[in-house]
């Protein structure tokens, strides 16, 4: 996926409109597979040495809102920022005083929120800086913070709506809509990580609504991005596998299900996986194993 992602990022003047949508999708796949794959390797190696590490991803692309997303994505980073920045900041003397003053000036309802939202902005600013000391990461962090704040502000409205229409909340298609909404929202925010330039990112995002080139999905243009059709098929199969494992893991972890299978079946599945990695893996001449995206962090 990296090949296509880099092709799309390297020539923004050429790859606008639908290409930006493709970039959002491709980068989402690349980032998740890269990051969760690296973490799985770490967890596996640690377990082989008798050390149990916590999971760092809990099916984040199944999240229905941004808060849920950040509870499922890079869990250790989220909990670290919560435990070492958000909470200490929230209960600090400065925030206590600010809370008191804002309640006096703005009333109890709004005044109560100011310190929380300020702490949220500070945490997300820090999260952005953690990713890199550059404007694109800072803006990315702040945007995450603002979206969370807006989401919290709108939550009474959502509650009213669901109380008014209780059947909608449990509806499969509505849940699917919330998952897709969150997915694409996070993809859009991640464009700042792709282009690494704030004005360019906003310009490229805007081109989705001004450049209408949907036909690139059907006229073979996507095979000009450095990947052939068979590569996309393998990626699709890989995504299907990740999706399947995620779906079956909702009720019971996939590893526990695997352990419960008869030995020959378990062995055959593991063999197939091993051969798939051996044959389709991105390693060897022309690949750099240290190109894990999060290697730079």
């Amino acid at each position, binding site marked *: 996926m990296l090949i296509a992602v880099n092709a799309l990022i390297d020539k923004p003047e050429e790859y606008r409109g639908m290409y930006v949508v493709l970039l959002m999708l491709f980068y989402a796949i690349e980032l998740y597979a890269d990051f969760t794959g690296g973490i799985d390797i770490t967890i596996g190696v640690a377990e082989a040495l008798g050390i149990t590490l916590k999971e760092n991803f809990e099916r984040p692309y199944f999240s229905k809102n941004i808060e849920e997303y950040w509870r499922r994505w890079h869990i250790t980073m989220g909990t670290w920022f919560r435990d070492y920045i958000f909470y200490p900041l929230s209960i600090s003397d400065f925030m206590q005083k600010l809370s008191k003053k804002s309640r006096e000036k703005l009333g109890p309802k709004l005044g109560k929120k100011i310190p929380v939202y300020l702490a949220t902005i500070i945490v997300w600013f820090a999260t952005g800086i953690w990713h890199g000391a550059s404007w694109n990461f800072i803006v990315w962090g702040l945007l995450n913070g603002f979206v969370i704040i807006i989401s919290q502000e709108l939550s009474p409205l959502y509650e009213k709506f669901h109380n008014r229409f209780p059947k909608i909340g449990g509806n499969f298609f509505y849940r699917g809509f919330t998952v897709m909404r969150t997915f694409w929202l996070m993809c859009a925010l991640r464009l700042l990580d792709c282009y690494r330039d704030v004005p360019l990112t906003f310009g490229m995002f805007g081109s989705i609504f001004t450049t209408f080139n949907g036909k690139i999905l059907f006229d073979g243009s996507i095979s000009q991005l450095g990947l*052939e059709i*068979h590569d996309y098929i393998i990626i699709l199969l890989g995504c299907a596998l990740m999706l399947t494992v995620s779906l079956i893991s909702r009720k019971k972890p996939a590893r526990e299900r695997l352990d419960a299978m008869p*030995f020959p079946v378990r062995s055959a599945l593991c*063999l197939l996986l091993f051969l798939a990695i051996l*044959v389709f893996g991105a390693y*060897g001449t022309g690949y750099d194993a240290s190109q894990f995206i999060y290697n730079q962090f």
Partner: protein
Amino acid sequence: MKRNIKRIIFVVAAVAVWVGAFFMTQRLLEPKYMDDLIEGALTAEYYDETTKHDVIFIGDCEVYENFSPVTLWENYGITSYIRGNAQQLIWQSYYLLEDTLRYEKPEFVVFNVLSMKYGEPQSEEYNRLTLDGMELSPVKIKAVEASMTEDEELITYIFPILRYHSRWNQLKSEDFEYFFKKDKISHNGFIMRADVRPATTFPEPEPLADYTLPATCWEYLDKMAALCKENDIELILIKAPSLYPVWYDQWDEQIVEYAQKNGLAYINLLDKCDEIGIDFYSPETADTYDRGLHLNLSGAEKLSNYFGGWLCSNYQITDHRNDPDISAVYSEKSADYYAMKEDQLRELSEFGELKSY
């Protein structure tokens, strides 16, 4: 107890299936070198030999295109094999010789000295053509370590699937057809080309700033000479008759000096072309198929006839034509040789060029 036995059987069976699947997948994805780049199949073909050889040729394409073991057999009863490869480097020649000595001890080793000009690993592609076919052994490991370019890794030569795994989207019918067994592409290491393409003119050779042959090459030539001496093998140095690449006089002088100093025979066959009867230039009957870089079939037969005669005049070498076992083997080899010759001549007559070779 029964449960434990059952468990052990399951585990052993699972390991066998895993190992089998791994090696079958590797076998499928490795290049077969049957339709394209047939030179890649040369190294491995040696291991199918059932008889020993009096003469082993080692070196680059100037040996496997220029010498015909069938001619040496038919005219002199000399058994020979050419362990040649495209751009075979001298350290590869040395290790292929070591590899050969694991199976037999020839009386003569003939080494083409063109590779003395390459002091460093050149390319992965040529390394693969030479080394992939070597049987895995400590000798192969040493050959690979001496040959690897910066980007290469030893593990990919031990488990080639680590290099060729991405061929899954380039699999051709030959990968399935030759999964279990390959066809022979050479005649005791000789690749036959019956077509004719005469030489034209080559640009004047550019003078070099430094004609000193690399120290690494001298080291390996010393090792080759020592290995031959240790095994009572006569090492003969040659420069095969090819018009290009250029073989500078200054290089030749160094080889002459080395040979004299070490009591080795050296023939520069480029100087003997008239004597051999090699003609590079006649439009219909030239002895080259690629404008003078390599000899064609007729050139190779002439050269082999000359070289065989030279060997017999200068050394005691057994004529095995009366040995029924060896004769039977070479009778089959000759039949294959002439069948291919006939087929190539038919294609040339029908199409004006070789289509299948």
